[in-house]
């Protein structure tokens, strides 16, 4: 199996699993209880928070554990705007955000009358900072821009964008999910107020995430209950998950510089060789800085799901922005926002590598993909005669 869909999820590192295991069966108590075995876990929890904070270069009381990236985006944006409801009801985000942000904005519009501005991106997939600046109004409560796009890997100028927001007195949220573990992320350096991190995107477990909440940033909890996480997010703490995400962060921060250059080298090799071997292929996001593991291509005259299934038959897993691979039957909103034709969005393929991907894996893909494209182009009514 050659798994190249690491932006969807990653296999949990066996070391992470090993670290977690005792916390399911032996050290299982509820950290809120007061007897010895529970109180010790409270110590484990706070110690883990400190270690996570140190890796992310923030204060430990700025780390709020939750269930994942989607929850972190949800509670940060909702928690921020509800705490500032007297300021105004305007949110600025981008047209290429993950659904975890876009759907929150739609929800706030529908039920709380917020106005949403969606910043466009250029053909490389990057927002325009001047447009951001011009979009801010006295009613703007928050700006939410992702660090790296899940489909194209394109990195946004978060530090500069956060500065623009702050200069106008507006708070800044960033979905960091695809950046963590792939590029060094220094949250203090980025200068954001809220951030979202997901464990399973960098070989940690599923069901655990982190909301970064800058000390002093306006916030009210939308997950109410027993006062956990300093009243920021209720729910019995997922100690195995917290141990797991800490371990995954430790491993990835240790390996990141070597891992990033390894992935970039293989990604570039894949990109250049595809361009060499397959005519009429577009590289989506190639003119922007990208996270090193992601390659998004559009293959002319072919539909993505067909390619995904043919590759899967050969033991290669990738994804596509084609309508057929989504629940909505609409092609990738990210690729359309970059100005791609519908047909090219339908014909997109995303390869997302991991530190475990080998040169042999990439060579195998380069051997398997061209005949698949040829076969599907032969069947396509739009392919020019030279492909028949």
């Amino acid at each position, binding site marked *: 199996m050659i798994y190249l869909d690491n932006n969807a999820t990653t296999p949990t590192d066996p070391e992470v699993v090993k670290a977690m295991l005792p916390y399911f069966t032996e050290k299982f108590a509820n950290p809120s209880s007061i007897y010895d075995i529970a109180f010790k876990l409270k110590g484990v929890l706070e110690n883990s928070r400190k270690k996570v904070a140190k890796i992310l270069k923030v204060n430990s009381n700025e780390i709020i554990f939750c269930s994942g990236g989607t929850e972190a985006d949800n509670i940060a944006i909702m928690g921020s705007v509800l705490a500032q409801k007297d300021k105004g009801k305007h949110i600025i985000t981008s047209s290429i955000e993950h659904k975890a942000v876009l759907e929150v904005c739609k929800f706030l519009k529908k039920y709380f009358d917020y106005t949403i501005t969606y910043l466009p991106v250029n053909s490389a997939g990057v927002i325009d900072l001047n447009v951001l600046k011009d979009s801010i109004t006295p009613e703007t409560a928050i700006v939410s821009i992702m660090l790296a796009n899940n489909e194209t890997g394109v990195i946004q100028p978060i530090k500069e964008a956060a500065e623009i927001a702050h200069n106008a007195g507006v708070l800044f949220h960033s979905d960091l999910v695809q950046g963590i573990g792939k590029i060094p992320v220094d949250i203090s350096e980025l200068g954001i107020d809220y951030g979202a991190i997901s464990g399973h995107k960098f070989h940690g477990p599923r069901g655990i995430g982190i909301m970064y909440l800058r000390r002093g940033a306006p916030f009210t909890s939308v997950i109410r209950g027993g006062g956990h996480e300093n009243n920021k997010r209720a729910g019995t703490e997922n100690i195995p998950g917290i141990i797991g995400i800490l371990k995954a962060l430790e491993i990835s921060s240790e390996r990141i510089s070597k891992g990033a250059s390894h992935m970039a080298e293989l990604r570039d090799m894949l990109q250049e060789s595809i361009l060499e071997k397959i005519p009429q292929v577009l590289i989506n996001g190639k003119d922007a800085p990208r996270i090193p593991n992601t390659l998004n291509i559009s293959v002319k005259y072919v539909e993505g799901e067909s390619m995904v299934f043919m590759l899967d038959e050969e033991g290669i897993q990738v994804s596509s922005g084609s309508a*057929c691979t989504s629940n909505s039957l609409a092609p990738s909103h990210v690729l359309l926002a970059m100005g791609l034709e519908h047909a090219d969005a339908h014909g997109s393929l995303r390869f997302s590598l991991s530190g475990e991907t080998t040169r042999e894996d990439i060579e195998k893909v380069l051997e398997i993909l061209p005949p698949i494209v040829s076969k599907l182009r032969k069947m396509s009514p739009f392919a020019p005669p030279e492909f028949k």
Partner: protein
Amino acid sequence: MSIDKSKDGRLYTSKVMEHFRNPHHWGKIDDADGVGRVGNPICGDVMYIYLKIKDDIITDIAFETLGCVAAIATSSIATEIVIGKPLKEAWKLTDRDVANALGGLPANKFHCSMLAEEGLRAAIQDYLKKQGRSVDEFK
């Protein structure tokens, strides 16, 4: 929708995958007697159907499809079903017949079988029109 055990937890039935892997009658007939072009590149699925017809019998058929697994498999099975059949019978092929012949399709892919029905009918209609005839005779 019939439940097909061959799916074995997969998205598509083994029959769908069989036709996807080795589609029957794909290609183009340059001197076709009837051509049907349906679908829309904006939606991602386009199907062209080419027919050779003699004495109102489909003697040869070919398809070109841009689309997903279900679109290619439905194109293939539809051509398989109607080849050698009288036009009147081919006209009656429905999306449900196509889906059933494949052992079922996922709910959100059912529209692909519609494309096969529409493509075939468009090709038959094209042939009849050229003959100065009308589909009313099949209704």
